[in-house]
C-alpha cells in the first residue's frame, strides 16, 4: 500500500549537512498500523513529513498505491494528499472555525456538495464521540477532544492512509489511552492504514501491528511489534522495550548487594504466559527462586509476561532449570552487568557495578543468550 524506497533527506545546517533520513526502506501493508519509534532527532518526524510531502525527500521514492509521491507536483500532488489524512501533535485546528467547519475543511477544499458534507461530518463526529460540540469552537475543548476533532478531520475525505505525528505526545496518559482506543477502533472498522510516529513505547504496544525503530535517520529494526518487542536485535530497540530498571526496587537491591548475583529475565509469550512454570521449576530442581519483579501485558493483542527472578543453586542445576524453561517456550537469560554467573557461558565477563554504567547495561541482553 505504502512503500518507502531508499529514502534520504539531508538538511543544510550551519554546522554542515545533516542527514535526517538515510536510505530508509519500509513497506506498509493495507490495514496495518505501522509505528515508527525513536528518540528526538532519530528522523521519524522527517519521515512523516516526507510521506505527507510537507518536505521533499532528497533521494528515493515513496509509493502510495504505486504512485511516487516524490515526483508529484501541483494539482496531482494535492489530489494525492487528499488520499492521506494527517493528525498533528498540537492538533492544528482552525481556532476561529466551529468544530463542524474544522471537520468539514478537507471536504470543502475537495469541493464536496453541502448535503454530503453535513452527513459526513455528522457521521465523523459520531465516530469520535463529539456530536454535542458541533457548533462550538476548538478553544472550548480539552486536549483529548481537540485531538478527536483532529482525527475526524484526518478521516473526513475518506483517505486510505492516516499519518499520526506524535498524536498523543501532548496528552495525559488517560487521554492517550482513549485516543489510541479510538484509532484502533477506526482501523478495525474502516480498514484504514495508519502510520504512527511516536517516542512512547506504550503507543506502539497498545496500538501498532508493526514497528520500525529509528536511530540517526536510519531504520535499525522493523517487523511485527510482538517480534521486535520480544526479540530486539539492537541496543536502541532493547532500551525502548525494556523498562527503566534503575527505578525498580530489585535493581537497587542488586546494586547494594542485598541479593545474590544470579538474576535472570524470563519472557513468556502467548500461551506460555498462562502456565505455572515457576511452580514447576521449584518443585523439579534443587534451587531457590525468588521473583524480583514481574509484569504481564498485552502487545498487539498477544499476552507477554516478563519476570525478573533470582535463582540460587549449583551451576549445573541452574543450567538444567534454564533448559527446562526454554523447552517450554520461555525465553530466559542472565542479566548482564551484575556479576552474574551465567551458567550457559563460562567466559561471561564479570564486572563490578558502576553506577554510571549500570543504567546503560542493565536491561540489555548482551552477552547473554543471543536471540535470533
Amino acid at each position, binding site marked *: 500500500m505504502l512503500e518507502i524506497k531508499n529514502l534520504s533527506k539531508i538538511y543544510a545546517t550551519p554546522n554542515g549537512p545533516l542527514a535526517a533520513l538515510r536510505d530508509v526502506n519500509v513497506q506498509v501493508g493495507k490495514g496495518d498500523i505501522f509505528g515508527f519509534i525513536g528518540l528526538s532527532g532519530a528522523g521519524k518526524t522527517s519521515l512523516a513529513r516526507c510521506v505527507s510531502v510537507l518536505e521533499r525527500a532528497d533521494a528515493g521514492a515513496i509509493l502510495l498505491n504505486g504512485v511516487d509521491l516524490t515526483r508529484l507536483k501541483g494539482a496531482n500532488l494535492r489530489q*494525492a494528499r487528499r488520499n492521506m489524512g494527517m493528525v498533528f501533535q498540537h492538533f492544528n485546528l482552525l481556532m476561529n472555525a466551529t468544530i463542524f467547519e474544522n471537520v468539514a475543511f478537507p471536504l470543502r477544499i475537495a469541493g464536496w456538495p453541502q448535503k454530503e458534507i453535513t452527513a459526513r461530518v455528522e457521521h465523523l463526529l459520531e465516530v469520535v464521540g463529539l456530536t454535542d460540540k458541533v457548533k462550538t469552537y476548538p478553544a472550548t475543548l480539552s486536549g483529548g477532544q481537540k485531538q478527536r476533532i483532529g482525527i475526524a478531520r484526518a478521516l473526513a475525505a475518506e483517505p486510505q492512509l492516516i499519518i499520526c505525528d506524535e498524536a498523543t505526545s501532548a496528552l495525559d496518559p488517560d487521554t492517550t489511552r482513549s485516543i489510541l482506543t479510538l484509532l484502533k477502533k477506526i482501523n478495525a472498522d474502516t480498514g484504514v492504514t495508519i502510520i504512527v510516529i511516536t517516542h512512547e513505547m506504550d503507543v506502539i504496544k497498545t496500538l501498532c501491528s508493526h514497528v520500525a525503530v529509528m536511530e540517526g535517520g536510519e531504520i535499525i529494526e522493523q517487523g511485527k511489534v510482538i517480534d521486535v518487542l520480544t526479540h530486539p536485535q539492537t541496543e536502541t530497540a532493547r532500551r525502548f522495550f525494556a523498562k527503566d530498571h534503575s527505578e525498580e526496587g530489585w535493581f537497587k537491591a542488586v546494586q547494594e548487594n542485598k541479593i545474590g548475583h544470579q538474576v535472570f529475565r524470563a519472557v513468556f509469550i502467548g500461551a506460555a504466559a498462562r502456565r505455572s512454570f515457576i511452580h514447576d521449576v521449584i518443585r523439579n530442581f534443587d534451587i531457590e527462586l525468588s521473583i524480583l519483579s514481574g509484569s504481564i501485558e498485552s502487545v498487539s493483542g498477544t499476552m507477554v509476561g516478563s519476570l525478573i527472578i533470582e535463582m540460587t543453586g549449583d551451576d549445573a542445576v541452574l543450567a538444567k532449570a534454564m533448559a527446562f524453561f526454554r523447552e517450554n517456550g520461555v525465553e530466559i537469560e542472565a542479566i548482564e552487568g551484575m556479576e552474574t554467573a551465567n551458567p550457559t557461558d563460562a567466559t561471561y565477563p564479570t564486572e563490578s557495578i558502576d553506577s554510571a554504567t549500570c543504567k546503560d547495561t542493565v536491561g540489555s541482553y548482551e552477552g547473554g543468550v543471543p536471540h535470533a
Partner: protein
Amino acid sequence: MPSIQPFSLLSSSTDPGFFRLLFSGEWDALARHLSGNYLTTVRDGTEIYLMNMEAYLTHLTRTLPQATIDTLYMVGFASLFAVLFGIVVGMTLYVTQRGGIYALPGFNRLLGAVINIGRSIPFVVLILLLFPLSRLIVGTSIGRTASIVPLTIAAIPFMSRVIEAALNELGRGIIEAAVAAGATPRQIIWRVVLPECAPGLVAGFTLTIINLITFSAMAGMIGGGGLGHIAHMYGVSRFRTDILVYTIIILVILVQIIQAIGQMIARRLDKR
C-alpha cells in the same frame, strides 16, 4: 480712539464674528469698554482680535460639526483605500517571504525596501510631495477630498506592515495542516489565513485608522480641511486656545470611539 477694521485678512464671510483691531490708543479704556460684549485676544500689545460673543458661538456650532464630518470623511476614505491596498500589499509580503505559500524572497526584499522608504518620509513632507498627484487625481491640492490622496499613500506602507505582522502570528502548523489536506494556495489564504487572522487584522485596521486621524489633523494644517484646519486657523493663528481645546476634545472622543469599536469587533471575531 483706536481704529477698528473688519477682520479682512482672514475670510470674514466664513467667520462673521471676527474683527481685528489695530491698537493705537489707550488699551485699558478700550478693554473696559469691550469686555461686556466681546471675547478678546491680544497679540504683542499692538493688535487685538475681537469676536462678538453671540456670532462667535453661532459660528462655532456650525464650524466644529462640519470640521468633524470633514475629518471623518477624509479618514474614512483614506482608511478604506489603505485597508484595500494594505491587505493586498501585506498579503503579498506574507506569501512571498522565505518559506511562504508563494515564496519569492528576492521580490519580497524589494517590496520591503519600497515600503520602508514610504514609511521613512515624514508625513508633512509627503503631503507637499503629493500635491501634484492630488491635483491629478482630485483636481485640487487643497480641501478635504484632496487630503485623501496623501493620507492613503502614507497609510498604505504602515497598514501593509501591520497586516504582515498580523498574518505572521498564525502558526506554521495550521498552514501545514491545510497543505497536507490538499488545499490550494488560494484556499489556504481564503479559508485559513484570513479567517484565522481576522481579529489581528481588525486590530491592525483600528491602529491605522487612529493613526490616520492624527495624520489628517496634520494635513489640515496645510490646507487639508477638517478639525486640524480649525485647530490651526482659530487655535493657532488667532490664539483661540478654547477652540484648540474643543478640537482636541473631539479628536480624543473620535479616537476612543474608534478604538472601542475596533476592540469590540476583534473580540467578537476571536474564538481562540
